[in-house]
């Protein structure tokens, strides 16, 4: 069996590349540590000296202001120095290879690389080539994984529902193009959620998605029945009006979350969304702003989860 590239020889988290393959204990360690950081972010001084003197490089080969900002806030609250590199607009466009870019940055004494790349697997390639004291955190690679988003979803679910055993979780929408969905499915099954459902049109569900241990629904009403947690995915604008979908209006009619459809889930169900939301496409405004919505707390927890991941990997 191949060694897990995310773990060091002692089985500790060296890089965070994907939730897939992470043992339950490490997921629980991250969630537990994040809980303590939530306490820090609620104080007047929202900063701890833990990573003083460490350098965190935000390597965004694909633009994403929101994700980059949350990593930047997390690193600053750990007292690390943050360097933001918008590589999409720099060396790569001059023809430098990915590994050359990383080798150059590594020569500038980095401790942690936060990597966002349009190609699946790019963070793995970087992790294989960095020095032993350097750590890679995947901030989204192609359609493959977005582990910190998956972890903050898990954190949010645990915060509101206390435990995973007994939960029915529905993930709705464009699962095919979603790296968030994959990360979350792996996390939920590892932590023992008994029923994970994916809901969407045939064209937006990956072939063989059942192999991940989920139940597939094409009818949203049937899929939402009795759910504790509803995770809405973003329908990316570029997919609309393409060959996979007739139109945004049509999609909303079948798979948009309205108060009337949400009423089929459990009365205390929570509604999540990784953002940014398309109101009136995958989610109706009264639901997004309603009492079941925990979309903004997700953002707050996301900072603490990223603080936990960074401080755990950089210490190993």
């Amino acid at each position, binding site marked *: 069996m191949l060694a897990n590239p995310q773990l060091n020889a002692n089985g*500790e988290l060296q890089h965070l590349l994907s939730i897939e393959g992470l043992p339950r204990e490490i997921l*629980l*360690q991250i969630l*537990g*540590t994040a*809980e*303590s*950081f*939530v*306490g*820090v972010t609620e*104080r*007047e*001084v929202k*900063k*701890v*000296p*833990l*990573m003083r003197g460490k350098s965190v490089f935000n390597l965004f080969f694909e633009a994403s202001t929101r994700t980059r900002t949350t990593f930047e806030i997390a690193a600053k609250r750990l007292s690390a120095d943050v360097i933001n590199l918008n590589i999409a607009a720099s060396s790569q466009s001059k023809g430098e290879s990915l590994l050359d870019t990383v080798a150059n940055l590594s020569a500038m004494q980095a401790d942690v690389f936060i990597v966002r790349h349009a190609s699946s697997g790019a963070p793995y390639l970087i992790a294989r080539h960095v020095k032993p004291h350097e750590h890679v955190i995947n901030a989204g690679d192609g359609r493959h994984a977005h582990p910190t988003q998956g972890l903050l979803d898990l954190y949010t679910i645990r915060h509101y529902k206390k435990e995973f055993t007994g939960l029915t979780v529905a993930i709705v929408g464009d699962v095919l193009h979603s790296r968030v969905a994959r990360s979350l499915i792996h996390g939920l099954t590892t932590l023992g959620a008994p029923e994970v459902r994916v809901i969407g049109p045939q064209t937006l569900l990956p072939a063989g998605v059942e192999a991940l241990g989920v139940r597939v629904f094409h009818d949203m009403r049937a899929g939402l029945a009795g759910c504790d947690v509803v995770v809405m995915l973003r329908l990316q604008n570029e997919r609309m009006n393409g060959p996979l979908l007739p139109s945004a209006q049509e999609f909303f009619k079948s798979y948009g979350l309205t108060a009337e459809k949400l009423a089929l889930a459990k009365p205390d169900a929570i509604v999540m969304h990784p953002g940014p939301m398309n109101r009136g496409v995958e989610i109706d405004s009264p639901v997004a702003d309603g009492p079941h919505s925990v979309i903004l707390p997700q953002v707050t927890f996301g900072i603490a989860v990223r603080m936990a991941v960074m*401080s*755990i990997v*950089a*210490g*190993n």
Partner: protein
Amino acid sequence: MTSKLPEAEELLPRLAAELRPRVTPATAMIGLHTGGAWVAERLHPMLGLKDPLGLMDIAFYRDDYAKEGLKHDPKKTRIPFEVEGRDLLLVDDVLYTGRTVRAAMNELFDYGRPRSIALVVLADRGGRQLPIEAQHVGARVEVPKDKRLRLKRADNGRLRLELEDAG
């Protein structure tokens, strides 16, 4: 060394008696996870302090992060009162190098500026690496360098000091 360890349960009421005269309306107590929190949970009701007990985990303020990393799930620090202007009793189980207390004071100042901090420990085993002393000490204990003095809590809540091999 064969020196007998003091009984933690006997030290608690003595420490409380020593602390009582200094309690004012501005006094509040903070225990350090895990052993210090146990001691504080016992002392706090004996002193009748009006504010609930604060609990602190100094994991994010340790000075050995570069060497040791973040191994265990840190507990959440909860200080359910305003630190600003208070006279704080900072409680730990065993005082040794002084590094935990240094970290605790750094964390405390991120909550506010207390008027004073007094350090209360169940046992002082010497071996300080920093200029830190406790104002209230349950007992001074001589401990061989290769041993660790630890506080244990039984299921019935009784506290007991024990020697372990330092690993």
